[in-house]
């Protein structure tokens, strides 16, 4: 091993393979059957339970936990999958601390919620390990639907459409399905190739043809899709990124965090992945946290995450923040980048920041500045909708949809990150994809 955590620049192999493996192991190791029974026993089986309301896919949580407690986790899994076919992924990636577990009455009473996410994983893992797909397709309807984007929204939509008896073609621009499950989510949340295994398992419903490497706007055209299919669902996510608009942004060593992460997720050998000795991450969301944490885990010596507002406004949850700091990430609040300096050869790179504050006229940047050394700068200041079809009306930069997922164009539905409703979360994308599928079904069958 030539490099170490103290090697300057952006280099690979800072840590030995064993350390890397330990660093990128499962964030929450799965519960064993006894732990699951004990955790399940804590559920009070609340009336009209608040956790169900808090879950974007409205999983009947008390019911599935009772099914675990009574020794039938497979039945629990069926309860989960009925509402959320990506219940396995959601069990791993949902920020439960701001969803179901936040409103658990035991969180309110004792500060210790029932471990809903981990129990959900226990149930779904149990059924999936048996290789069982719990649903069968209804009689064929003869209708054909195009689903564009094979992320959580598209997958959930395609599955529900197929289940309802329709023929689905699932297009995606990337070589692999899964969307950010495959290319974005932090590696330690979805270990052992779970994203692809889940897609394979989901596809066993049948009736879904996958077309990879087909991009809307490049290889596909919305009007043509409307011509040849009875309905179209768009779940293209946010393929663009916000620019920093800071001097020096175009230098080497300055990269989009999502690109850094997607390379990491696709890497066969983490030891071959270069990372800076000193990494500065700019942003305050889940992407920023994941980029910062994974840089540390790859062996960066110093990782600083800089967010331009205070902790209350940060999109990343308290849990995510604590995770980052526990991994040794330093978080600086109320500062924004002014310029990126350094020599042409990449050495002595520094980012100059200015402190911000809320003044009498609202948010403002002050004159007070400071510098942080940075071999590598990762930008994570938000993703955007990338070149949406002209015909679609937008709302705040996203495809405008109604409660059922209908866009401004007849016969075209949308859901997930690209659409105007809900938070940018895996589980929300699943809910929107599923609901759009039901609305498409209704529209096609009436």
């Amino acid at each position, binding site marked *: 091993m030539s490099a170490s955590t103290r090697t300057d620049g952006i280099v690979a192999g800072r840590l030995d393979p064993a350390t890397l493996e330990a660093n990128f192991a499962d964030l929450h190791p799965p519960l064993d059957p*006894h732990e699951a029974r004990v955790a399940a*026993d*804590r559920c*009070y089986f*609340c*009336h009209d*339970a608040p956790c169900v309301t808090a879950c974007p896919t409205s999983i009947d949580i008390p019911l599935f936990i009772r099914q675990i407690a009574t020794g039938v986790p497979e039945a629990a899994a069926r309860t989960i999958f009925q509402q959320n076919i990506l219940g396995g992924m959601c069990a791993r990636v949902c920020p439960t601390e701001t969803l179901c577990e936040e409103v658990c*009455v035991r969180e*309110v*009473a004792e500060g210790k919620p029932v471990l809903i996410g981990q129990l959900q994983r226990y149930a779904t893992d149990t059924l999936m390990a048996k290789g069982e797909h719990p649903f069968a397709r209804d009689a064929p309807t003869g209708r054909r639907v195009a689903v564009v984007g094979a992320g959580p929204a598209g997958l959930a939509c395609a599955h529900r459409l197929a289940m309802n008896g329709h023929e689905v073609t699932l297009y995606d621009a990337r070589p692999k399905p899964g969307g950010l499950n495959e290319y974005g989510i932090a590696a330690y949340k979805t270990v052992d190739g779970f994203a692809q295994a889940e897609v394979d398992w989901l596809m066993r419903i049948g009736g879904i043809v996958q077309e990879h490497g087909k991009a809307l706007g490049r290889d596909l055209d919305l009007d043509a899709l409307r011509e040849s299919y009875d309905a179209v669902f768009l779940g293209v996510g946010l393929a663009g990124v916000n620019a920093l608009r800071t001097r020096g942004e175009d230098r080497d060593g300055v990269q989009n965090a999502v690109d850094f992460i997607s390379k990491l997720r696709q890497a066969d050998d983490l030891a071959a992945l270069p990372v800076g000795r000193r990494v500065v991450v700019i942003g305050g969301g889940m992407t920023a946290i994941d980029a910062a944490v994974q840089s540390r885990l790859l062996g960066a010596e110093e990782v600083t995450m800089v967010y331009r507002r205070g902790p209350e406004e940060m999109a990343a949850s308290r849990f995510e923040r604590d995770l980052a700091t526990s991994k040794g990430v330093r978080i600086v609040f109320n500062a924004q980048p002014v310029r990126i300096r350094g020599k042409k050869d990449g050495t002595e790179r520094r980012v100059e920041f200015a402190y911000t504050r809320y003044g009498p006229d609202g948010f403002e940047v002050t004159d007070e500045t400071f510098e942080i050394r940075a071999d590598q700068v990762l930008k994570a200041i938000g993703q955007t909708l990338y070149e949406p079809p002209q015909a679609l009306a937008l709302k705040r930069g996203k495809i405008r949809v109604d409660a059922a997922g209908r866009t401004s164009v007849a016969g075209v539905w949308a859901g997930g990150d690209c659409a105007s409703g809900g938070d940018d979360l895996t589980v929300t994308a699943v809910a929107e994809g599923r609901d759009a599928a039901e609305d498409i079904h209704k529209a096609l069958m009436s």
Partner: protein
Amino acid sequence: MADLTTDFAGIKSPNPFWLASAPPTDKEYNVRRAFEAGWGGVVWKTLGLDPHVVNVNGPRYGAVWGADRRLLGLNNIELITDRPLEVNLREIKQVKRDYPDRAMVVSLMVPCEEDPWKFILSQVEDTGADGVELNFGCPHGMSERGMGSAVGQVPEYIEMVTRWCKQNTRMPVIVKLTPNITDVRKPAKAAKDGGADAVSLINTINSITAVDLDNFAPEPTIDGKGSHGGYCGPAVKPIALSMVSEIARDPDLQGLPISGIGGVTTWRDAAEFIALGCGSVQVCTAAMTYGFKIVQEMVSGLGQWMDDKGHADLDAIRGRAVPNVTDWKYLNLNYVTKARIDQELCISCGRCFAACEDTSHQAIAMKPGRVFEVIDEECVACNLCVNVCPVENCITMERMAPGTVDPRTGRMVEAEYANWTTHPNNPAAKAAE
């Protein structure tokens, strides 16, 4: 600390905590360690005649668990001691010699004939033991051979055997009763009539803890078959308390010392048995679950509670709850309460709502923001909401002051005590005097 010394039917021990006749008291090794741990006495595992019995060689226990696999109920198909009589007698003698201040009671079970009883009593007397307990309770195996609960279920036999024993020994005789009967006062009365110095109860309850659904066989399963066992542990405590109270309340049985057994797990359980009239308590399952050390919690807990309440010794608490055990017909029907939900403590789980709405009196309203409130017009004060609420003291029963109007009935709450015997709806009611 309060004085915990115990004199039970003339048998003295430093505290009221005895180990019941069972595996914990099956041999010298155990009993010495039990005494070292602080147990006040033991009832030695039941002795029988040689050739000694044999036990099954497959599993002999089954169980019922609560959350986190807490053992709530245990069931067993073990028989009496499976060691030679002479070995047990020798060990009893040695242990008693070394622990003269501890109660050493020996449990006995021999066929229903006078000679075997005469024989074994004289053998036990030679050990220096403080007393004997007649095992008329074992509900499995031995009962098939006409012993144990087969005797305990026939008051005439109880009286006959007890009388033989009293005639053949100077030691105090305790009769251990089976709960597998309909009215425990009958066997207790038979024991008393036979001259028993005391009764102890309960022995185990006929039970099958579970059925193996793969093999369709009761558990514990031995080569595909199972047989009912005897149930004990925390789950049986309510049954034992009720049976103890029936004996304690019976005018014909006044003064008969009772050793309380069945689910005693903590000092509090023991205090409850004592309050219902027991002179000592016996413990089996709790020791089998947690080991001998629990007696230290029992001694310190009982002592502290007595100190806190100013009870100097066990006489100060024994039987104190007995006068308050009454018949349903004497309960005060003018005692009107309503459930009250403490909104500060409420965690909004809605269990009270589900319980009352679905299965009781639709007396809880669910208001916006998951606020739960009792509807006094509907509340019959059944207590179900209190029982299903996961938060202690969140829902309580508040008495309505006499003179106020019960919104459910529209009638004024009377200050005077009135019960069913004088109620107008009772066809057999006597006019109130």
